[in-house]
């Protein structure tokens, strides 16, 4: 890991904003888990609890001109990118006021107005899409970085190697963000990768890379900013490995036979939110009332999201085949 980054004078408002985003993600995910147990949310649900610092920190390095491609564990990225909690909750309810009209569910959030090009459920399936978006930007001389989030499992897929090679070969503005949470569903990293220092994979394609503690939101922010700046300078793609851990099961149906409770507890000790609150407290940037205020406003925002979803209409069945193709111009 690179040396501890010096944090330039940390601005209080910015710090509170980071903290609120992380707490929003945490409470949103807890509410999603609750709603799953009573059958409001169905199908698959992959929670982001524990990895909040990655999405929040990395998102600080991206502008509204940048594009995002993520995976099926994308609630954190979507919230950090600014997709309204209500539209995400409604999508998980399968309602027509969901961000994908109830068509995608938890694994397929889309919001083109915020250049959020999806949750993708095929491991590694999003990488070529990100390469293509970057190619389009480059060919149209459009400023913009395409940030592509993927897990350590995707590193096993051929498309990871093909995408890094093509992006490096054509010097495309792709910021590859590997969220290494040490497990590809039920397979520990050491059991699915021969070389577990993922950052070093980039050397094979002559591509700059870095790794950072994914539990430290400020470190993530700094590393992501540096990586994004490198990409913006037109030097081609960058691979940033964010080392993190998920406190919950892979998905709602996972009895977690593959890891020890002890290990989970050890990582929980580095809870990104608790760690950040402690750091800000030491620096006198935050007091207990600030946390209560954030928790209260987040709780309200999550409740509003649930009401928005509950009130949402079902898509009319007559629209079943709408949008399979683009309607012919009249």
């Amino acid at each position, binding site marked *: 890991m690179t040396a501890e980054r010096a944090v330039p004078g940390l601005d209080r408002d910015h710090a509170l904003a980071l903290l609120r985003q992380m707490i929003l993600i945490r409470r949103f995910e807890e509410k999603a888990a609750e709603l799953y147990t009573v*059958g*409001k949310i169905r199908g698959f649900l992959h929670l982001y609890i524990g990895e909040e610092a990655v999405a929040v920190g990395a998102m600080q390095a991206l502008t509204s001109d940048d594009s995002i491609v993520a995976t099926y564990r994308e609630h954190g990225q979507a919230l950090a990118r600014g997709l309204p909690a209500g539209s995400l909750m409604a999508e998980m309810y399968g309602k027509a006021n969901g961000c994908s009209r109830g068509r995608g569910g938890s694994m397929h959030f889309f919001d083109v107005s915020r250049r959020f090009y999806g949750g993708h459920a095929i491991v590694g399936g999003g990488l070529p899409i990100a390469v293509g978006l970057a190619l389009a930007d480059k060919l149209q001389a459009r400023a913009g970085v395409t940030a592509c989030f993927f897990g350590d499992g995707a590193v096993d897929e051929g498309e990871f190697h093909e995408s890094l090679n093509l992006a490096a070969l054509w010097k495309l503005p792709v910021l590859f963000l590997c969220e290494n949470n040490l497990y590809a569903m039920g397979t520990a990293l050491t059991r699915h990768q021969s070389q577990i220092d993922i950052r070093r994979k980039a050397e094979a394609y002559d591509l700059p890379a870095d790794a950072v503690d994914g539990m430290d939101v400020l470190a993530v922010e700094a590393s992501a900013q540096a990586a994004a700046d490198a990409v913006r300078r037109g030097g081609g793609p960058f691979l940033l490995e964010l080392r993190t851990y998920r406190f919950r099961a892979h998905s*709602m149906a996972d009895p977690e036979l593959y890891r020890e409770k002890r290990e989970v507890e050890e990582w929980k000790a580095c809870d990104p939110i608790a760690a950040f609150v402690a750091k800000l407290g030491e620096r006198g940037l935050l007091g207990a009332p600030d946390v209560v205020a954030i928790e209260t406003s987040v709780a309200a925002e999550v409740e509003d999201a649930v009401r928005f979803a509950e009130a949402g209409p079902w898509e009319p069945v007559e629209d079943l085949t709408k949008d399979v193709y683009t309607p012919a111009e009249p």
Partner: protein
Amino acid sequence: MPILTADMSAGTIVEWRKKPGDAVKRGEIVALVETDKGLIDVEIFASGVIETILVEPGATVPTGTVLAVIREEPGAAPTPAAPAAIPVPVAPPVVLAPPSEAKAAPGRLKISPLARKLAAELGIDPATVRGTGPGGAIRREDIEQAAAGAAAAAPAAPRTALDRQARLRQTIGAAMARSKREIPHYYLATTIDLHPAMTWLTGENLERPVGDRLLYGVLLIKAVALALREVPELNAVWRGGEVVPGQAIHVGVAVSLRSGGLVAPALHDADRQGLGDLMRSFRDLVRRARAGGLRSSELSDPTITVTSLGEQGVETVFPIIYPPQVAIVGFGKVVERPWSVGGQIVSRPVITATLAADHRVSDGHRGGRFLAAVDRLLQEPGRL
């Protein structure tokens, strides 16, 4: 009981981590549950104090069952109650627009392949049949109705009886016309001494209860059936321009209908039935033919037909073959005639048997052997 996996419908409590009186906080693990995917911790979403545990370890309960009662702290956000049933809109069946049926070419008859094949076999002109299928299409049932003719119809208002009779007349007419047009008939006749058969029959009926008495017609049918074993080429149908040998001997028996007209349903495997069974089958067939209860297989299965007009006082019958069959046997009335027996002239009951056969399939030599076999078989009625 929380839904913990995508397809979970019930769960078994393995152990409680809390007991009544314990305080619980949102997010705490309060129990362990066995699901289809294995052991999963149960998280509590309310904070408060456990009052009572309703489901003990070891019990399996459907998802949604209340497991424990918690006295909630004031101010905790209520979870929206689990819906009894998730109000998913009932999807009206998505009716795909049926592929637009290209307009059938004008003058083109809308008839199913099966119906067209059956009509050809029964010698029915489809054009004369009114279709009851979609868009007036003619279906198998329509042809069978036409074939069974009036008998098949339940006693209906006279007008439709007349229609049916007219239609049956047309149907029989079409079949006979086609038979005459297409089948090169040859005719043979012989006179058979029925004395042995009639004396045997009178003795046989004395021992049989009224309901089991035999008619001499049954002897004639059995003799024809057994004779066909010796001349199998007469037991066949003509289809697709070639003769198709009968897989079995199904003798069609011409039955006159009380309201006029005729049908010739099949007595299945007539060669293999004993005289008693054959008589029962024969009586049942006539009863159903006249009551309109024939099965379609009985109409399409005969491999030869026997027609007997003796009771109408006719001595010799010159019948027309029923397409697609290739032969037909006719019997006239039983008459007393002088008959030479060992040089002596005696009076004997005789009957004239005629054979009309399709010269494309058999020739007179084979037809003659057949009639000789019928004659020979009738001389030993006990062995029929």
